């Protein structure tokens, strides 16, 4: 099926009805499931966290050698997942890529809720999270400021800028849709839409401003695609730890982030398509064809960087680098994990080379799940594992996450799902005005 077929199969009038049906038609099962997920995420996420704040960081599996564990892994993972949204909304907007339109809103939403998880995991990993505001450069009478040499301070700015601009971008795209929603939906939501659509009525001038602002923000966000995860990678790369201190980290992390982000988009949209078959009309085989191709290319680049990461260690041939490599990829517990990571991130996406596999169940569900697990593992293999083998062998120690860390990690994933499920009942997951633009406004035929 080509792109042209998609366009012609939907008529202009149907779009509103189709997309609004996702918001308006909610079964009892949906409420029950969302409530269950909400309860589970709160109990798995916040209760252990409260316990940890009350007792101390000692409830984790960290020790005097491995200070960064699963929390930091989750932090980097969620920053990574947040990446694809920006890429799709900004870079593909500027290049006028046609397959962007139907999936951009979904991608931006994934970005938003990943960015909810990011600061949470930063606060969770801190020893005294009640003092988190000390990391912000606020005017203080004690004349104490933040250290601008610290990569963590870079993080505060990079992620702060990214979160702010992502929210603005998402909201900007929502405004024309809110007009449609407020006309068609009654109840408490109508009031909400009326309030936050800030007087949108679709005049020419408003459209003009909207298009120009979108263009401006796309250009504004574009550097952030590269900068945010580069800065996150500098948390590690600016140290002297053998497994961290690599110049390849910034592009390596960015590529990995996009890979995991695209996998998340693939998986979530595929699940939504199964739940709401109406979405199959908008997100078609054509879209899968494009996204999976992109994933495959990213995976190839990622493989190259992984090779570089190992090759630099081998080439440098320092004793600490070799010890770290031995631990990471040559000894049993992590050898298997490493092999699994390579299998899921480098080999599984290669199956997309077959055109038939791209929109198949295998391509839509199995491969993205493998990539997501593989990318999480990649961060795990980098962060705690590098710290397990630093310089002095006397104090080498392994790390195993405790139940608190595992529970909070699971709670993070569930919390993300819950927020997403609530969101799609309030805001359209497919951009109505973008799709309409794709179809084209029906004109009176001239005789």
């Amino acid at each position, binding site marked *: 099926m080509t792109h042209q077929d998609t366009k012609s199969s939907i008529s202009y009038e149907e779009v509103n009805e189709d997309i609004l049906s996702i918001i308006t038609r909610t079964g009892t099962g949906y409420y029950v499931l969302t409530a269950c997920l909400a309860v589970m995420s709160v109990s798995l996420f916040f209760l252990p966290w409260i316990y940890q704040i009350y007792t101390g960081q000692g409830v984790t599996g960290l020790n*005097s*050698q491995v200070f960064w564990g699963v929390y930091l892994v989750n932090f980097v993972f969620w920053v990574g997942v947040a990446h694809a949204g920006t890429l799709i909304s900004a870079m593909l907007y500027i290049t006028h890529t046609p397959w962007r339109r139907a999936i951009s809103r979904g991608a931006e939403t994934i970005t938003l809720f990943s960015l909810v998880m990011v600061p949470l995991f930063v606060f969770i990993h801190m*020893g005294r*999270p009640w003092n988190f505001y000390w*990391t912000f450069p606020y005017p203080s009478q004690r004349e104490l400021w933040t250290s601008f040499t610290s990569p963590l301070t870079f993080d505060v700015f990079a992620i702060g800028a990214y979160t702010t601009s992502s929210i603005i971008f998402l909201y900007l795209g929502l405004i024309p849709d809110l007009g449609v929603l407020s006309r068609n939906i009654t109840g408490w939501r109508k009031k909400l839409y009326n309030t936050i659509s800030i007087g949108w009525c679709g005049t020419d001038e408003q459209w003009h401003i909207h298009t120009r602002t979108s263009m401006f923000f796309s250009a504004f966000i574009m550097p952030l695609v590269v900068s945010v995860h580069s800065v996150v990678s500098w948390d590690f790369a*600016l140290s002297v730890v053998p497994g961290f201190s690599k110049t390849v980290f910034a592009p390596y992390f960015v590529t990995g982030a996009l890979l995991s982000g695209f996998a998340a988009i693939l998986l979530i949209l595929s699940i939504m398509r199964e739940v709401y078959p109406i979405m199959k009309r908008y997100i078609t085989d054509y879209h899968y064809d494009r996204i999976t191709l992109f994933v495959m290319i990213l995976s190839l680049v990622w493989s190259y960087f992984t090779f570089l990461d190992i090759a630099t260690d081998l080439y440098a041939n320092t004793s600490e680098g070799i010890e770290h490599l031995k631990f990471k990829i040559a000894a049993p517990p992590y050898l298997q994990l490493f092999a699994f990571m390579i299998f899921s991130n480098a080999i599984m996406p290669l199956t997309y080379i077959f055109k038939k596999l791209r929109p198949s169940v295998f391509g839509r569900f199995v491969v993205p799940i493998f990539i997501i697990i593989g990318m999480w593992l990649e961060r795990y293999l980098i962060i705690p594992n590098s710290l397990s083998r630093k310089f002095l062998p006397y104090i080498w120690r392994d790390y195993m996450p405790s139940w608190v860390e595992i529970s909070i990690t699971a709670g993070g994933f569930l919390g993300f799902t819950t927020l997403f499920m609530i969101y799609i009942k309030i805001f359209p997951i497919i951009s109505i005005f973008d799709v309409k633009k794709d179809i084209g406004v029906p004109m009176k035929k001239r005789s």
Partner: protein
Amino acid sequence: MAGFIDRFLARYDIYRYPGYYKKFDYWWAMVIDLDRCTGCGACVTACQAENNTPVVGEDESGKGRVLNWIRIERYIEGEYPNVKVKFIPILCQQCDKAPCEVGCPVYATYHNQDGLNVQVYNRCVGTFTCATYCPYDVRRFNWFTYNKRDLLQGKGGRSTSFEPPLDQQLNPDLSVREMGVMEKCTFCIQRIRAAKDKAKDEKREVKDGEIYPACVQTCPTKAMTFGDLNDPNSMVSKLTGLTEKTDYLREDGSKIFKIAKNPRTYRLLEDINVFPKVFYLKRVMNDDSSRHKK
């Protein structure tokens, strides 16, 4: 403009490289003679008593969370009967270009005017960055509030770290840290402070040998020496051979990092260029392994 940039760069260069701290009165350093070290562990105990570091209990020790600011690393080489055991006491190396200071986002760890790498407990938010960046793994974290936590965890009775009457032996010169705070060796900064105050009152410089950290004081074989590297006549300067400042940094700014005239002097992990201020004197073995390699 160009002049300004040049001046800035020149200044920056001064700030960046060791030798900058020489403009201050003191430049504290420690020399550990491994030939004399017997690995008895007295320094570890003395440090614990001086600095109010808590005892963490059996479970926590097993998890590798022992809160000692100095540790004796023990390396066993060879196979029986040719077994060699080597000891090396490792404490915070007070690096001149410390990686931990770069990492801290809130200046909880910074370089003070004596060239020491100090830790401000009250400012620490516990991001673990300093400990992660530390190549020597000498930073220790308060995983719990140990003076309130039951260390036995229900295995017969209850015991906290500073249970009465043990709280009577706490050092009043420094605090007991709460959970979520990083801590490390300070070269017993409370003693340095006291000696400097006394010297100031008497309007003189601190004399060599006037200050000794707890580990130096307690070492039965006098393997450890503490002193001021700025003073060419101090014991540490003599032991390391660092009597001439030009060995460290030439006046014209070209850097020479060959530090010692004493062939036994070395610093730990010198190749990562963090410029530690703990100097080790190599242990001389009665075999070929200690022969000076040319």
